[in-house]
């Protein structure tokens, strides 16, 4: 199993997992690329990616963990308003796990169902790094 001590280690695990699961060339998978919107991942692809990461590292991340991680334990009714628009509290949380987000531009615009569409390869690497550190 690959030991995950540096960012390079994590990249060396996450990058091929994403490329192989999605059938993409290595250079198509960049850290900034969003998994679902840009690379075209469907839920079965995410499952595939997570199982590939588990196989090479032993780190188990459930598909349901992804959205939980993104939402940071904030209850649905506080994360989005009655029209499913992400609240300011929700946006503050999103900025923590997806620092690339321009939360000012997204304020009052971002719908709950669109959130995962912004999740990038880099964001996944950050999650894997956090889990690796927690299990070390």
């Amino acid at each position, binding site marked *: 199993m690959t030991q995950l001590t540096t960012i390079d280690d994590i990249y060396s695990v996450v990058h091929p997992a994403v490329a192989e*699961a999605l059938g993409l060339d290595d250079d198509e998978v960049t850290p900034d690329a969003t998994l679902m919107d840009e690379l075209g991942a469907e839920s*079965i692809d995410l*499952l*595939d990616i997570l*199982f*590939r990461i*588990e*196989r090479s590292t032993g780190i188990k991340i459930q598909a349901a963990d992804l959205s939980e991680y993104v939402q940071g334990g904030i209850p649905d009714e506080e994360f989005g308003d009655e029209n499913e628009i992400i609240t300011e509290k929700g946006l503050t949380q999103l900025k923590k796990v997806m620092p690339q987000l321009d939360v000012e531009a997204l304020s009052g615009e971002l719908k709950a169902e669109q959130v995962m569409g912004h999740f990038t390869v880099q964001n996944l690497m950050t999650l894997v790094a956090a889990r690796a550190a927690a299990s070390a």
Partner: protein
Amino acid sequence: MELEGRVALVTGGSRGIGRATALRLAAEGAAVGVNYRNDEKAAQEVVREIQDGGVSAIALQGDVSDYEQAEGVVAKTIAELGGLHVLVNNAGIAKDALIFNMEPADWLKVMSVNFGGVFNGTKAVLPHFMSQRDGVIVNMSSMMGERGWTGESNYAASKGAINAFTRCSAVELARFGIRVNAVLPGFVPTDLVSELLEKDGGKSIKKQVPLRGFASADDVAEAVFFLAAARSGFITGTLLPIDGGVGAQLGLGRTNW
């Protein structure tokens, strides 16, 4: 010994085709979990026979029509035999009746054991199979799932469901390194179909079979072994009849030739 180092779980493995399959896989070196619902003695005999051949085996009680029990059987196999690579979803029952006389409970029961058992077994092994990116599932279907027969509508529907599920799960799970196939016996003289053979020893059925006879449980086990082994490594989503040609035949009586 093509299955050395592999672990197999056969549901409904104490009798009939399940028993023959457990013994066949063990003969190729696979450690075998022999699942049974009621007949512990028969399951223990299968286990002993396998162990006498120098291969590991355990008997596992559990009703696979109940998801939690199926999960328990899978977990125990992995814990006690050190892994799991081959799942044979074999457990099945029949409650034959004319539709006119059939109680709603009778189709539901047959469906929940035959198809429910396949669904539950499949779902229960997925975390393990997907994680190791390696696994083979063989579902025990029947030619009844592809053709019609009076008095077997519930059984046939459950097998038809297994056939559809086999194709879908093969497609869905291929990317995780999991192959899924089904074998479709015609008539096999086991306890399950004994009523059908009561009248004339099966003579009237036998003469309608192009190969003039019935498959034995061993014939079916041989096909399961083939689909479980690496030699069929590029085969998935297949429904393999073991029916002596019945399904290929246009059943309109005797030819003039």
